[in-house]
């Protein structure tokens, strides 16, 4: 199964290989207390987690540090994944920006992989993956438009969906129109 | 050489087949409706802009609960009501629809549990003035009553 193989390959990025506690995947919270806990969880450590496809819609969830990103994406490229999308999430409470990369496969060995990396909100810089996936170009430009995340080494990082002179980033939570 | 001529022949044949089809279509009756001169009736579920539904006496059924106002994604609806002296129920005093922002999603009609608003079948709305699309539905209802 490609899922297991990919998981192993991705896990090799994390030398400690600390078997993460079977993360209390945000299932339906039954009580108030649990909900509060879900709202303020301990910051997640880098690593690979297997998710329930029926609930979340993807199989593998890997959080990497920005400098591991290229390696992780290369692993997926070699395993013939295609790029689905790149997007960001603004975690303003933690003062972090998250970049989320979605990958999937063309064959029937279905495996959806999410790679995420957390950046400092004040200086969001992440290496570009356009060298590996040419199709990441527009997705990265879009993410740059919406969140102001700088993709280092991107060949043409100018506004794509926003006007050419846009200097605002509308999907940041503190953006006011 | 043979391939050269078969390609020409097959190509020509395909062109004549195509011309045969358009020739047949030429003699078929037209399917269009000459719009301003003829019109189609709107189907029963057609979603036009909303309209207040009157009760038997011609007064609005609305009980001024404000659910439609809340359900609306684009803040098109603004309504107000007050209790008349001695009356039990609130009565509608204002019901404005800003049709310039409405996207005809029908959330308001769905949210209304009193059947007080419904879609109109009007589709022929055109004007050069923006103000023409801010409907005072209460006034429209009263005009209909007369």
């Amino acid at each position, binding site marked *: 199964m490609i899922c297991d193989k990919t998981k192993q390959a991705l896990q090799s990025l994390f030398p400690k290989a600390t078997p993460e506690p079977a993360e209390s995947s945000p299932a339906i919270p039954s009580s108030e207390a649990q909900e509060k806990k879900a709202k303020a969880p301990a910051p997640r450590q880098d690593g690979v987690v297997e998710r329930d496809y029926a609930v979340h819609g993807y199989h593998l969830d890997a959080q990497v540090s920005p400098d591991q990103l290229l390696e992780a994406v290369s692993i997926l490229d070699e395993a013939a994944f295609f*790029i689905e999308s790149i997007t960001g999430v603004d975690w303003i409470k933690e003062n972090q920006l998250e970049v989320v990369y979605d990958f999937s496969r*063309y064959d029937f060995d279905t495996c959806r992989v999410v790679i995420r990396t957390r950046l400092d909100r004040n200086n969001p810089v992440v290496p570009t993956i356009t060298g590996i996936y040419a199709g990441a170009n527009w997705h990265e430009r879009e993410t740059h438009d919406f969140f102001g995340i700088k993709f280092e080494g991107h060949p043409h990082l100018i506004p794509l969906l926003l006007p050419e002179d846009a200097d605002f980033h509308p*999907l940041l939570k503190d953006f006011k129109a | 050489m043979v391939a050269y001529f078969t390609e020409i022949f097959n190509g020509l044949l*395909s*062109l004549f087949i195509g011309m045969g089809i*358009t020739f047949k279509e030429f003699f078929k009756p037209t399917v269009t409706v000459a719009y301003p001169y003829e019109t189609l009736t709107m189907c029963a579920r057609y979603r036009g802009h909303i309209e207040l539904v009157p009760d038997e006496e011609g007064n609005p059924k609305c009980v001024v609960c404000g659910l439609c106002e809340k359900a609306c994604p684009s803040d098109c609806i603004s309504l107000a009501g007050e209790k008349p002296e001695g009356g039990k129920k609130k009565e509608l005093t204002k019901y404005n629809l800003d049709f310039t922002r409405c996207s005809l999603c029908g959330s308001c009609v769905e949210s209304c549990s009193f059947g007080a608003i419904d*879609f109109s079948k009007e589709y022929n709305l055109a004007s050069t003035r923006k103000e023409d699309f801010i409907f005072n539905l209460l006034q429209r209802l009263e005009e209909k009553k007369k």
Partner: protein
Amino acid sequence: MNAPILLQPDETFILNVGPQHPATHGVLRVKMEMSGEYIVNAETVIGYIHRMHEKMGELKTYPQFLMNLSRMDYLGALGYSHCHVLVVEKASGIVVPERAEYIRAIMVELNRIASHLFWFGAFVMDLGGFSPLMYALQDREHILDMLEAVTGSRLTYCYFRFGGLYNDIDDDFIAAARRFIPRMRKSLKKYKALVTGNIIFRKRLEGIAPLTPEMCRKYGASSAVARGSGINFDVRRNEPYSVYPEFDFDIPVYHECDSLARYMVRMDEIEQSLRIVEQGLDKLPGGPIMPDKKPKIIKPPAGDYYQAVETARGSFGVRLVSDGGKNPYRLKLRSPTYSNMHLFDEACRGMMIMDALAFMGSLDLVIPEIDR
């Protein structure tokens, strides 16, 4: 086939195709660096009708955002709504009655046919044939009439609800759909003779704009763009959702990788969609169209959720990040033509402008869907 003559940079000129150009079907602009009729370099400029649906998603509650999805793609709107309701249902654990799912599938497939028909007409019009567009619109009109009778609108439907549907279909609709299927099959034969077989048409598409499977993968192409390049990928098959596993249908795949292959895939898909509609009507169960138990206010638990569906234009995905509130924390809309269009810059290099525009037509672009 036609190797471009390489010229010095100062011998080329810039041609602005768009934002208003008959071939771009909307406000899309391609800045082409031309050497005579050959394209040396192209840069697609999008975003002219960007509306920031994703921010609207964050600012509105879940039900309020329902109608935005159909504004993304005005030709195949139901597929997009389907994805949105599926992801929210998955996240909040709402169980959809079987009848509702069947009706959804029927509606989505009818909408897919309508979308493909419009694409067919517009594509042939790009190539200079005008009449097929009119014939395609006549057939499409039947579908729109059927959908209007049920949903109340012709293009921007707001029909799916979390847990079910806005309203039920009636016998008139079923009868109309049953009448439509043989009529559409007959029309498909007509299109085949009039357009597919036509030598001029074939000459314009055969061998034009070859897209390798590798390139599709690097750009994340889907729909007929991938299937025309020999990639057997259809979300309905690869990641079955809704009631699609119940249906018997084929995924047309062509290995020629050219514009004609993409055309053939879509034409075959119309036939397959007809089969799904037929089976759906046969198997349509009774019962309610909304679940008995449904939370009054939709508040999916915190976490992130992804759902992909196969719309008329390809693999559409919604990534929902919830913080447990009434509004989504983040709603990412992954639109298929965004990735398909992205291919264009690289693929059209060295092509002649007329081939490039035929290639652009074969990508099935809907600009509001790219720009979101």
